[in-house]
């Protein structure tokens, strides 16, 4: 099972608390608006963006449709290059594999490159339970780890913190983990970056085990790709003697050449740069350069269940750029924590309920955490139709039906709490298929319209809490049409 933040309430409850936090809203507003304009400019520089996006979509779709073949190819290529491949059906198995690999080295600490997959499986906690300390080395991850906080964004997990808060965390917490923050540290971003450099350097230099994820795995060559900015990735990938990469099975691309698409679309979509500062590519192990032992852990953990859903599987195209978070009006106001998952925002709202299933309160509420405005779809560099999947998952939550869980076909029961919605839909279906009843009902509604309340009672109250009830016209359209002989002249 993936990590669900403990005691996580449904999205509306968590979001309700978050929107009342004015510092949080200010921080998110500032950060998302900064990046939005920059991303638009970076994308506009490339005249063939739409074609790159389509190529990316097709590469990923093709790979997913033949994933078994490409995974076997990855295994062969990585093994041939001197790496070892492990398979993990779920989070627990992946954690067990990694823990055993670290223990076999005799080390009790590891340095980590920022990785969504290892966050998803709760690797740090699993290692901690076995007496192994994992140091996060990405600046934002460090801020989250030092602040005993939770990530709230895919790319910048500490996006909910402003520079003043970061300075305070560094000042009070760094000494607990190693080198303390420099005396007189201010909130200037350059000084904060310098403080992180000094704090982490001793850890990089002595590290014997590195743990990473990967942005891409090339099937034909067995090459792994990590895209980053700070150089912490390079440190973790090249200095330790042992490197363990935990990678979701959907990260595969068939050919070396496929990277030419994603290395153009990913940096522009995520940090709005022509190219991110550092990209590392490695194939197995290499004499005297980098780790002498390389382990690749291929992770399922709900991905094959997602793959089994013909509508929902497109979520596996995601390259974790976070452009959809940055444009989302719901994310901007509610923040990442309300989504109760390491994958927040629009992509999280379709990924978490598919990876984890829709049984829990939070997961059943996530498909509804959207206004369906479609901005996410528009910016997505692999054209995931997020609104389509949201609506599909809403249907699954409300009506239940067939799904796949842990590789088994199951039939989900309709979720509790949607009874009124189902009753309303049933009534509507009946009315629309009985013309006489519909006509009678419409006339009655028109005649009594002065008596209508402005808000709905009972379960409908939540809906009218933020909307006006649409006014009923004085006369139904059909009656008006007949009375005015509408249309007759037009069809002569």
């Amino acid at each position: 099972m993936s990590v669900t933040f403990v005691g996580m309430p449904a999205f509306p409850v968590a979001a309700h608390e978050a929107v009342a936090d004015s510092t949080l809203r200010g921080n998110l507003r500032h950060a998302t608006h900064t990046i939005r304009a920059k991303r638009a400019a970076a994308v506009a520089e490339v005249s063939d963006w739409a074609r790159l996006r389509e190529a990316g979509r097709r590469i990923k779709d093709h790979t997913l449709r033949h994933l078994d073949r490409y995974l076997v190819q990855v295994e062969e290529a990585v093994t041939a290059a001197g790496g070892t491949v492990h398979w993990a059906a779920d989070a627990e198995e992946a954690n067990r594999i990694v823990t055993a690999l670290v223990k076999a080295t005799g080390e009790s600490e590891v340095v980590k490159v920022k990785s969504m997959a290892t966050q998803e499986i709760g690797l740090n906690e699993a290692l901690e339970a076995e007496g192994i300390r994992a140091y996060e080395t990405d600046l934002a991850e460090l801020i989250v780890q030092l602040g005993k906080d939770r990530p709230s964004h895919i790319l910048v997990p500490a996006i909910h913190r402003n520079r003043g808060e970061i300075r305070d965390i560094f000042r009070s917490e760094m000494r607990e983990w190693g080198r303390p923050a420099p005396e007189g540290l201010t909130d200037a971003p350059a000084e904060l970056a310098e403080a992180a450099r000094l704090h982490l350097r001793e850890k990089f230099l002595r590290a014997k085990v590195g743990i990473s994820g990967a942005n891409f795995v090339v099937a034909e060559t067995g090459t792994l790709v990590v895209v980053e900015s700070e150089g912490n990735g390079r440190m973790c990938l090249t200095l330790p003697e042992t490197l363990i990469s935990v990678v979701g099975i959907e990260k595969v691309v068939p050919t070396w050449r496929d990277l030419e698409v994603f290395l153009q679309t990913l940096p522009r979509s995520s940090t709005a740069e022509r190219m991110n500062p550092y990209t590392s590519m490695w194939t197995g192990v290499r004499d005297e350069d980098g780790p002498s032992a390389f382990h690749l852990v291929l992770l399922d953990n709900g991905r094959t269940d997602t793959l089994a859903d013909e509508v929902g599987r497109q979520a596996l195209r995601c390259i974790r750029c976070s452009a959809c978070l940055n444009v989302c009006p719901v994310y901007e106001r509610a923040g990442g924590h309300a989504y109760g998952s390491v994958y927040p925002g629009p992509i999280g709202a379709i990924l978490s309920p598919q990876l984890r299933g829709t049984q829990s309160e939070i997961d059943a509420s996530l498909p509804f955490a959207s206004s369906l405005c479609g901005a996410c779809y528009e910016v997505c560099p692999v054209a995931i139709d997020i609104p389509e999947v949201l609506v599909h998952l809403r249907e699954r939550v409300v009506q239940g039906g067939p799904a796949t869980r842990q590789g088994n076909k199951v039939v989900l029961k309709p979720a509790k709490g949607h009874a009124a919605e189902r009753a309303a839909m049933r009534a509507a279906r009946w009315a629309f298929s009985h013309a006489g009843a519909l006509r009678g009902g419409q006339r009655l509604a028109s005649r009594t319209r002065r008596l209508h309340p402005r808000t709905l009672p009972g379960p409908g109250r939540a809906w009218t809490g933020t909307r006006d009830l649409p006014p009923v016209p004085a006369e139904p359209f059909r009656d008006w049409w007949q009375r005015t002989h509408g249309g007759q002249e037009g069809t002569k």
Partner: protein
Amino acid sequence: MSSRDRVLGRVRRALADVPEDDTPYAQAVVRDYLRRHGERDPEDTVELLAENLVDYRAVVHRADAGDLPLLITRLLEARGSGKVLVPPGLPPEWTSAPDTHWVQDHTVSTPEELDRVDSVVTGCAVAIAETGTIVLDGSPDQGRRRITLIPDHHICVVRVPDQVVSSVPEALERLDPARPLTWISGPSATSDIELNRVEGVHGPRTLEVVLVSGDHSSP
């Protein structure tokens, strides 16, 4: 059942809807995007590389092959670098600066030793004009990945126009995936504080790129 079989079995069951004769890769992936963005002569391509390097805070210098040793000496002096690391295959004439302690890679091996070096001088495999990127592939004039990572100052020599391509697709064509590759676009940076780019985190905080012309000797 092994986990490998379990995962592969789940994948195959999940893909029951995919027909045997599904569109093959070559037809499924349409590559109608551009090989490069705009046509430029080699001189303009080098000019674009310089512009984009500067845009991401790399310091760009130009030199003729004959003046290169002097320029490198001057750059190291300006920075006050006493101890300078070089990969084994760097052309010896590049490292003629007097008063400099030249350290060959492999003579220092531990990360701690590398941390006491002031600067590193290398060549590169290819440079990408459209993105302002230099790529290292571990060839003898570039050395192991760690030597361009730990020192705080990196001087990278690009032979122009031979080593410069326009675009990412052209660069991938020239590179060998079997080699360890490092793509570098400006000095180390982060966007983690309020999603604004700040230079200078773990990698070299100063990246100086020397565009050298008239030198076609292979490393």
